[in-house]
């Protein structure tokens, strides 16, 4: 069964850099890798997407190795407001559904 694997939870102190790695089982050649963030009582929201190498935006960086079998979401200098669940859903293969798992629950500690 095609799926992604990521840690269930992580703790970090404020101001630290947090890296969350996701493994992508059988990712297809034309699939992009997308990460989402979900705060309590809200729907998930898109934070970053990439195909290979490195992508950076105002929220995070995404590192994708050449084999694309994993990706690492990097959050620089986290604050309490970064406490959320982070998902790396299994990318589609053609016009198919995207499968979300349980995500990584990040708890930022003061």
């Amino acid at each position, binding site marked *: 069964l095609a799926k992604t694997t990521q840690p269930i939870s992580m703790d970090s102190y404020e101001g630290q850099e947090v890296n969350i790695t996701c493994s992508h089982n059988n990712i297809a050649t034309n699939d992009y890798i997308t990460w989402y963030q979900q705060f309590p009582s809200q729907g998930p929201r898109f934070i970053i997407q990439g195909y290979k190498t490195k992508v950076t935006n105002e929220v995070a960086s995404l590192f994708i190795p050449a084999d694309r079998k994993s990706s690492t979401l990097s959050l620089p200098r986290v604050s309490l407001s970064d406490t959320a669940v982070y998902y790396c859903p299994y*990318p589609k293969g053609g*016009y198919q559904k995207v499968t979300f798992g349980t995500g990584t629950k990040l708890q930022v500690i003061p």
Partner: protein
Amino acid sequence: GAGVSQSPSNKVTEKGKDVELRCDPISGHTALYWYRQSLGQGLEFLIYFQGNSAPDKSGLPSDRFSAERTGGSVSTLTIQRTQQEDSAVYLCASSWDQETQYFGPGTRLLVL
């Protein structure tokens, strides 16, 4: 509005009653997804609509659940004869490229 909207935001119903949950996707988005999220859990896929293709219903947990999408836009998720285990947040998302999903705020369903 520019985003995905869902209604109602909260719904309390009695066991055995039917409920309808509505999703208004972003205009022009051809793909629409329904998910269910129980307290503290991840997203559980329910159903996926893509354009005029037959929907992927593989995630619907029982025949009490059904969904339709009219005119390629608004979607309604119907739960018949609700049970207490149906209590959850029901999330809708839409997409134009199937790469990025835009989620609504969800409908919180409580079955008493």
